[in-house]
């Protein structure tokens, strides 16, 4: 899902950036950094809040609090989209990430182990490797985005016609210029979906002796019954199925 998140906004914004650059070939009347407008100041402030929430989400020792800080971070990103006039993307961000993915996360946590208070054993020995990987990927993303949008300014005050990030413009860009990546992403999501089904089925077939306890995890039918008996391996599996369902929803929504 993070792949989708990182690809889609750039993919959508790029052609608009190109058209904007054509519209204003030179730096004449180019807005500078020294006299920021109100929107720009708000943008930076919301960005700081988002960054802070994201840092707390990965450093806090309380599992459920991490998921809730993730809500703040994802909501902050939605506000940033909104400030960039990409209204449609902003609401989809809220709908998919805050309304579905985080609910799935919380569901998985509550189904298995959601202690109130700190859980010292939730730390991983991989944290230095993980932080290195995340710093490298963040650096790559920041470089690419900064390089792509270097001289692009969005005209927020446009009164006539649909705005830069309106549903109409987004739809035109998506289904004219970016149809192929869009369909490729759909196939990727479908592959993830099929993979999740295969994983969950293989386990139930190989492990029939143990199904008395675990059968219900796959279809979340009887959540009350499994709440007590769930163990760590089931968490992974419930997560898989849940993730498949999220991809399903993302695909269905389009």
């Amino acid at each position, binding site marked *: 899902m993070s792949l989708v998140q990182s690809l889609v906004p750039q993919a959508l914004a790029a052609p608009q950036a190109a058209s904007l650059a054509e519209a204003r070939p030179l730096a004449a009347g180019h807005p500078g950094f020294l006299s920021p407008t109100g929107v720009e100041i708000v943008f930076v402030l919301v960005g700081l809040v988002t960054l802070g929430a994201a840092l707390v989400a990965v450093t806090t020792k309380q599992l459920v609090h991490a998921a809730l800080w993730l809500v703040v971070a994802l909501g902050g990103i939605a506000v940033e989209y909104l400030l960039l006039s990409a209204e*449609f993307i902003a609401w989809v961000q809220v709908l998919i990430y*805050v309304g579905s993915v985080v*609910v799935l996360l919380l569901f998985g946590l509550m189904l298995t182990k959601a202690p*109130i208070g700190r859980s010292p054993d939730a730390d991983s020995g991989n944290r230095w490797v993980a932080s290195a990987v995340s710093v490298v990927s963040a650096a790559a993303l920041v470089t690419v985005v900064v390089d792509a949008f270097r001289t692009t300014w969005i005209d927020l005050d446009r009164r006539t016609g649909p705005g830069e990030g309106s549903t109409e413009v987004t739809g035109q860009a998506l289904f004219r210029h970016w149809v192929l990546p869009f369909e490729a992403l759909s196939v990727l999501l479908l592959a993830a979906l099929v993979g999740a089904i295969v994983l969950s089925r293989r386990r139930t077939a190989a492990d029939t002796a143990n199904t008395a306890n675990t059968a219900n995890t796959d279809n979340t039918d009887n959540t009350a019954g499994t709440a007590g008996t769930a163990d760590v391996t089931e968490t992974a599996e419930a997560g898989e199925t849940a993730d498949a369902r999220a991809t399903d929803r993302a695909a269905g929504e389009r």
Partner: protein
Amino acid sequence: MDVLDVTVRIVAVLLAFLLLPLLVGQAEHKVMAHMQGRVGPMHAGGFHGWAQLVADGVKFAQKEDIVPDGADRRVFQLAPALALIPYLLVLVAIPVAPGGGVAQALDAGIFFVLAVMGVGILGSLMGGWASANKFSLLGGLRTAAQLMAYELPMLLAAASVAMAAGTLSLPGILGVWEWWWLPWQLVGGVVFFTAGLAELQRPPFDAPVADSEIIFGAYTEYTGLRFALFLLAEYAGIVVLSALTAVLFLGGWHGPFADGLGWLWMLLKTGVLAFGVIWLRVSYPRLREDQIQRLAWTALVPLALFQIALTGVVKVVM
């Protein structure tokens, strides 16, 4: 749009948010009572107990606000606000009259309302987890499972209307609405309303708060004003769901003399749907948890997909 205009619109939304849920709540008291051969509250305020909910509010405000010992205090206290505020935000985008009769016309209105309504569920989840009570936790789990199952058919049904209208904006949809959309989008409307009921956890989909099994689900440990906020969120949810169904599937302010009386048609349709919500509570038994899941995945999702196919075919042929 000047300052006065903005102020008037905000005040109107706030008034609707404070009044309509109370009206629905009072209607529920009286309608349920009469359907069960009782008369309901008769004393508070004099005339047929019209002030019963005001009295209830005063009672709730006087009660002690208790946070359980083992609870996660901040999350526990924040949850009711998170459950209630999204419905206030949604009201901003709902058109009530033709010609700018909406607090704020949004370009992607359908996505806005569905996204924000989904956020409200987080309040129940937070309350269910932070209460440190096994019944609350079970209620939260059921809430989450129900949301995941029913958000998909709801979205698909709404997408069908968006396809028919060629826009995601709620005033835009009403602008191109025709009377024959009623039969055309009928299946989608039924799916949307049913899925919305399930998201609100109203009977017959009230397994997450089933009092005979898990006390009161995620709200078990709440008292006083915070409990009242959860109840208010439920009634605000009924108003929002009825208004949304009226806008998307029943033509909103369309009707005879719509130019002058559009707002009345909108209120009337919303009221009839809200009455239906109450009626269902009185007449249907609670669905079991597995029945709830089966209904979503084997009935509502295929029906919504059928509606989208139908919309597409009619759209292409015409």
